[in-house]
């Protein structure tokens, strides 16, 4: 379609409602937050401009550990979500009886109020009564209870798994929709050429859903980076801070200790990190053309 002015104008008109809405509702709080990050805002009614002090303070503490931990946590969570999501989409796309039912059964983790789902995982991880520890003992894999949330390493992975659990349904149904829009004759052509199911998946399905995968992984990345409830409810960032991510740290500062200024500074930092990261991610990933996937 020609790139005329009319088209641009029309596009703007289409965008306008959403844009106005977002600006109307979110812009002010965003600006306010950035503003706050330069003040010593806390519970007290009067606030004072403190310049970069809040930011300097952040870097005084062991912030770099937290950043690195956050990125590792996010990376694994998103990666696992994507892998499981794509696999699940493929499984649930198979023309076998019962798939409609399974598609429905996939949804509950997503529908259940997040906090409740996390509590249920908390019980699962419970060393004394939890299903995991219980089954491990029943099958004789461990000879005593294992408290998964009691040790830094296992708590780290336990929180990731719970995050994956909550995120998988969305990824799956989105990938399912993407897979379903691939023209059937491509598979037929590949099949006639002798490509097996897995080869077809690798050379057709996967590259064809790459755009959807990029979008989903980025949305997921942002959500995961800011994933708060899971860690908060399961471990509160513990034990010994081993699951404290940036958002947990921010929450502890802003809401927990009512240091709104410092909290806002952390929030702004998160946004900055994410923006830069997403920018480069999108750039590099989109540049890897999907046809190169073998």
């Amino acid at each position: 379609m020609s790139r005329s002015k009319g088209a641009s104008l029309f596009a703007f008109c289409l965008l306008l409602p959403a844009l106005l809405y977002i600006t109307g509702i979110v812009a002010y709080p965003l600006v306010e937050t950035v503003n706050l990050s330069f003040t010593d805002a806390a519970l007290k009614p009067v606030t004072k401009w403190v310049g970069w002090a809040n930011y300097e303070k952040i870097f005084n503490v062991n912030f770099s550990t937290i950043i690195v931990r956050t990125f590792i946590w996010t990376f694994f969570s998103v990666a696992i979500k994507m892998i499981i999501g794509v696999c699940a989409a493929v499984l649930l796309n198979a023309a076998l009886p019962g798939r409609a039912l399974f598609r429905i059964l996939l949804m509950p983790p997503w529908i259940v109020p997040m906090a409740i789902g996390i509590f249920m995982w908390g019980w699962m991880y419970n060393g004394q009564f939890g299903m995991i520890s219980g089954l491990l003992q029943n099958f004789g894999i461990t000879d005593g209870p294992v408290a998964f949330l009691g040790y830094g390493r296992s708590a780290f992975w336990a929180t990731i798994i719970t995050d994956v659990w909550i995120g998988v349904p969305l990824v799956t149904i989105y990938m399912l929709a993407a897979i379903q829009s691939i023209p059937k004759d491509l598979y037929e052509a590949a099949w006639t050429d002798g490509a097996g199911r897995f080869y077809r998946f690798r050379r057709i399905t996967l590259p064809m859903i790459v755009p959807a995968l990029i979008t989903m992984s980025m949305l997921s990345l942002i959500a995961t980076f800011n994933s708060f409830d899971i860690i908060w409810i399961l471990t509160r960032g513990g034990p010994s801070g081993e699951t404290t991510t940036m958002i947990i740290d921010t929450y502890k500062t802003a809401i927990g200790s009512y240091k709104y200024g410092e909290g806002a500074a952390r929030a702004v930092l998160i946004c900055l990190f994410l923006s830069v990261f997403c920018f480069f991610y999108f750039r590099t990933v989109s540049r890897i053309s999907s046809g190169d996937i073998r």
Partner: protein
Amino acid sequence: MSQLVLSDLRKSFGDLEIIKGVNLDVSEGEFVVFVGPSGCGKSTLLRMIAGLEDVSGGEIVIGGKQVKDLPPVKRGIAMVFQSYALYPHMSVFENIAFPLRVEGLSEDKIKERVGAAAKVLQLESRLQQRPGTLSGGQRQRVAIGRAIVRQPKIFLFDEPLSNLDAALRTEMRVELMSLHQKLGSTMVYVTHDQVEAMTMADKIVVLNAGTIEQIGSPLELYHKPDNIFVAGFIGSPKMNFLSGTVTASDRGNVVVDLGKVGTIKLPRGGHPDLVGKTVTVGMRPEHLALGEDKFSFEVTPGIVERLGIHTLAYCTLADGKNFVALFEGDPEINQGVSFTVGIDPAKCQLFDSDGIAVHKESQSGMHSS
């Protein structure tokens, strides 16, 4: 040896029967062309042979083996899709290389084979483009490329040259034929191009509404069509059909009264039963010549199309019916000015009231379906 045998093959979509019992026997190395009106089931039949469409009834035997439940690759076939089915995310190179990669050939081998195919298909300068940026003809060539890099036992082509220009088309035709000779592979080819059908086929299969009307060599179909449908379908421009009544049948001749056009004596022996029946006489436009012949009649040209190589005259007969005549070169005929044309009755076709051909040696029962 029979390479491909279809027996009583049937296919329904829901309640709709699309393929209604097809029997066909293709020998090894044969070049078989399917022709038939749009929507008659050519692609469906091809897809059934390929294994892309499940079979509602009947058998498919390839190389002596029942293949109804085998996947395409086990049937040893390669296919060019009517819809091309190119992989939009892969370059032209990768599209063509796809079957080779499936086979697991080495990178060098792949480069070589794809390069060779691209050269034949004149796609060398396009190898790095994506299908989305190709012209219609280029896409079609990529689809052909993908089929020919593999060297299977049976090729299935679904209108592979329909988007190419005449020159390239001729070239590709020759290429495919030489490929056919070189590989000795069996080819099943769908086309609606008369020239392709006539020049390439060892055997033409004329399909109509899901059934086979006739199977035969090109010239057999041209000269001895089994029925009106085949007669009308093979040959372009289409055969003229004039209906008349048989007035006599003697001495190896059938006399047909064509009304105002005249009375023609066709060399057909032993058909006393036809006397009094309504029949149809077929005359190919290209069999007419200007001036008198054994049978002559007057026509009035309407539109005259001059194609250089020959001239088409869309005429009306004395009884007002339409009639098409084709003359060599660029003769002096003008719209509205009647003239006489002649034809050798030996070249005319005769069909009985059911549309079945009445052949010279009384082979009227020979049609196959």
